[in-house]
């Protein structure tokens, strides 16, 4: 069983990790191929819109990097670079231009070979180009020797990491890496979206537990983050292009971290959750402007660890899975920081989410079980009450009495049958309810006493004190006490008095049920008395969970049961 559980929980994790290892190996093989690709390091930038891209426009090494902030509002600039091809290329050659945030026209030896976005747009948002794009180099221009790349560029918006990156090489080799990155991103997006939806359904399906909502939002914020990463715009729809930026992506992660902390706060149940969450939200936003992404990640993990530590201190349910998830997250983020695992950050987050899924699943399974047990208990109680009025011992003895009535006093026989019918009808009507008017309960008791008066040839009286008649009680509790009293307390007596009284003390209602039976505390009958009391306890537990008390004691003149409900 232990082993089976181990596999049930860890197999999905292992499979997930395996698929990531696969992706990582894929990445490595692509990197091997990319060695054939020529990377152009020296890039020159200069102003001058109307110049001819065939000419060398800028001085060598004038500017090594594009500083976006300098380019903004400068209109069109020229970005140029030279490339030396060692040989004539037989295969399809392509130029890849990355990390230019804006619109471009690309010239190869003065020939226009590609466009990205629109240099003269009506609206910036609709005409921004992709972060990286490919231009195919015509075969006749890919001969051995020096070639000139001229890019007419217009900067749209700021970008923290805005430096141009030109690469020339086999078209399929160059695009393979991007395809691989995109596949990985689509996989992660799918995982985050699915988990997000999963927790959202849990949130609506299982009592709107706030922590599920936070976990769902956390997943969704990571799906957004994985879309916004600018290096993976290969399949990004045009309308999203303006929003792609490392800054936006990182900011989404900072917002996501608020949801993560929210989840932990609610799941672990820390006092003053909202204040705590607000504090972290402020820290998170301030961190975005003040410290690096990695430093914030460490801060987040430290913060989360502190909350989890509190959870361990309080022995919160599901703490082990949360700890496992967090340790996994810390481990994978470290692997990512130390450049061991390229997607460590995402893998860590997915690992965490998987752990939470298992934890949440277990909790929900537990809740469902509790609910089912409650249902079962309810129907067991209903059956128990019904059974009392149809149990063979009761019916057959009543029938034996009825025989005697028929033969001796037929007029009583008819009334006796009526009483039996009334009791049966009343018990069947109330048995499936949780609370019934006390009037019904008292009626049930009186009918039962009437039946027993015939059978025992006795006189039984039920008195009530302090009742308004508006009270509601679980069905059958006083009826059971009446039955118990008669079965065990009136063997030789042929007169009996039952008193039901009510007192209100503070918020609590105290019912006292007394009968003047002959008490035999040590007899074997006390055990049987126990089964009746067990029924009453089960009813009280169901209807007034944790807010009830039952005391049963022999007095020198009878038996008394006290029931207190909150």
């Amino acid at each position, binding site marked *: 069983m232990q082993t089976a559980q181990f596999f049930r929980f860890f197999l999905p994790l292992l499979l997930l990790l395996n698929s990531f290892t696969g992706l990582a190996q894929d990445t490595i093989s692509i990197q091997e191929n990319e060695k054939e690709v020529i990377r152009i390091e020296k890039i020159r930038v200069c102003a001058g819109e109307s110049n001819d891209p065939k000419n060398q426009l800028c001085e060598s090494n004038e500017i090594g990097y594009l500083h976006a902030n300098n380019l903004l509002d400068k209109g069109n600039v020229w970005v140029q670079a030279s490339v030396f091809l060692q040989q004539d290329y037989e295969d399809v050659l392509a130029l890849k231009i990355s990390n230019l945030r804006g619109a471009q026209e690309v010239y190869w030896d003065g020939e226009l070979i590609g466009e990205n976005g629109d240099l003269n747009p009506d609206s910036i948002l609709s005409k921004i180009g992709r972060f990286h794009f490919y231009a195919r180099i015509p075969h006749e221009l890919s001969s051995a020797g020096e070639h000139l790349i001229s890019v007419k560029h217009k900067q749209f918006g700021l970008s923290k990491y805005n430096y141009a990156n030109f690469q020339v090489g086999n078209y399929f080799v160059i695009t393979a890496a991007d395809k691989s990155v995109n596949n990985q991103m689509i996989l992660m997006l799918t995982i985050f979206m699915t988990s997000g939806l999963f927790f959202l359904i849990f949130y609506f399906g299982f009592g709107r537990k706030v922590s599920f909502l936070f976990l769902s939002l956390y997943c969704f914020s990571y799906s957004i983050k994985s879309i916004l990463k600018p290096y993976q715009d290969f399949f990004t729809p045009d309308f999203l292009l303006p929003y792609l930026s490392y800054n936006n992506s990182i900011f989404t992660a900072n917002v996501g971290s608020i949801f993560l902390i929210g989840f932990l706060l609610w799941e672990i149940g820390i006092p003053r959750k909202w204040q705590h969450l607000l504090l972290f939200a402020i820290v998170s936003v301030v961190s975005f402007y003040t410290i690096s992404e990695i430093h914030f990640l460490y801060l987040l993990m430290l913060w989360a660890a502190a909350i989890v530590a509190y959870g361990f201190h309080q022995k919160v349910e599901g703490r082990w899975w949360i700890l496992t998830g967090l340790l996994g997250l810390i481990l994978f983020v470290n692997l990512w920081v130390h450049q061991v695992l390229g997607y460590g950050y995402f893998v860590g987050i997915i690992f965490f989410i998987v752990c939470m899924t298992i934890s949440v699943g277990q909790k929900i399974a537990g809740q469902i079980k509790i609910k089912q047990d409650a249902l079962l208990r309810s129907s067991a109680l209903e059956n128990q009450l019904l059974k009392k009025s149809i149990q063979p011992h009761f019916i057959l003895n009543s029938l*034996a009495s009825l*025989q005697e009535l028929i033969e*001796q006093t037929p007029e009583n026989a008819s009334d006796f049958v009526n009483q039996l019918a009334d009791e049966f009808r009343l018990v069947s009507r109330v048995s499936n309810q949780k609370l019934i008017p006390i009037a019904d309960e008292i009626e049930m008791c009186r009918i039962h006493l009437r039946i027993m008066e015939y*059978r025992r040839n*006795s006189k039984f009286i039920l008195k009530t004190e302090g009742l308004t008649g508006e009270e509601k009680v679980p069905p059958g509790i006083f009826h059971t006490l009446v039955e118990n009293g008669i079965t065990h307390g009136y063997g030789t007596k042929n007169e009996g008095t039952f008193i039901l009284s009510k007192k209100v003390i503070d918020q609590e209602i105290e019912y006292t049920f007394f009968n003047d039976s002959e008490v035999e505390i040590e007899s074997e009958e006390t055990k*049987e008395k126990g089964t009746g009391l067990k029924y009453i306890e089960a009813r009280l537990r169901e209807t007034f969970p944790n807010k009830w008390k039952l005391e049963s004691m022999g007095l020198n003149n009878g038996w008394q049961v006290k029931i207190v409900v909150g």
Partner: protein
Amino acid sequence: MRILIVEDEALIAQRIERLTREILGNELQQLTIKPTLESASLFTDEYPVDLMILDLNLNGKDGFQLLEKSVAQSFQTMILSANTDRAIEAYDYGVLDFIAKPFNKARLEKAFQRYNNQNYRAEYPTKYLAVKKSQKMQLVDIEEIVFIKGAGNYGELNLKDGKRELHDKSLQHLEKLLPSHFERIHKSFIVNLKMVESISTKYEVVLKNGEVIPISRSIYKRVKDLLS
């Protein structure tokens, strides 16, 4: 006949009494009603009784413990109960008859006939005989019995292991409760036919434990036939 009725439901007790009086008429010497087994046993300690009609709620262990006590007595016991599903178990303890509730006059009449008919055997023979030990009851498995010797109103149970136990019932009462391989071979002896080694021509049976028991001339031939 002296009858004790143990019934806590007044109406049913009244019914048993009425029907018993109608059936037995002058045969009835004494009829007492007690609501509980406790009050009944106080009564039987002081007054002789021939037959006890016992209403027993056989649900649960307690009912059988009470039954054990009453079947150890000298009188015969009939059960009157709603719990018919436990009837066979009740017979195991040595009750003469089991009357299911509700019941009519004819059924009660039959029960009294069974009591009076010396040749009647309980529908299911007993499996145990309860023996009163100091304070508690001991159940003797009837297959452990080699023979029973009548001693006044008692039966002396002679067991395979050589022990002897006294049971409060007379041979006449015991005969009706025991299975058919227990045969009354003599005014003072009931023998377990499974334990008979041989039967001699001197009107004696030799038992497997070596004991020799006399056999009545009147049933000598029948026993011989049974054994061969």
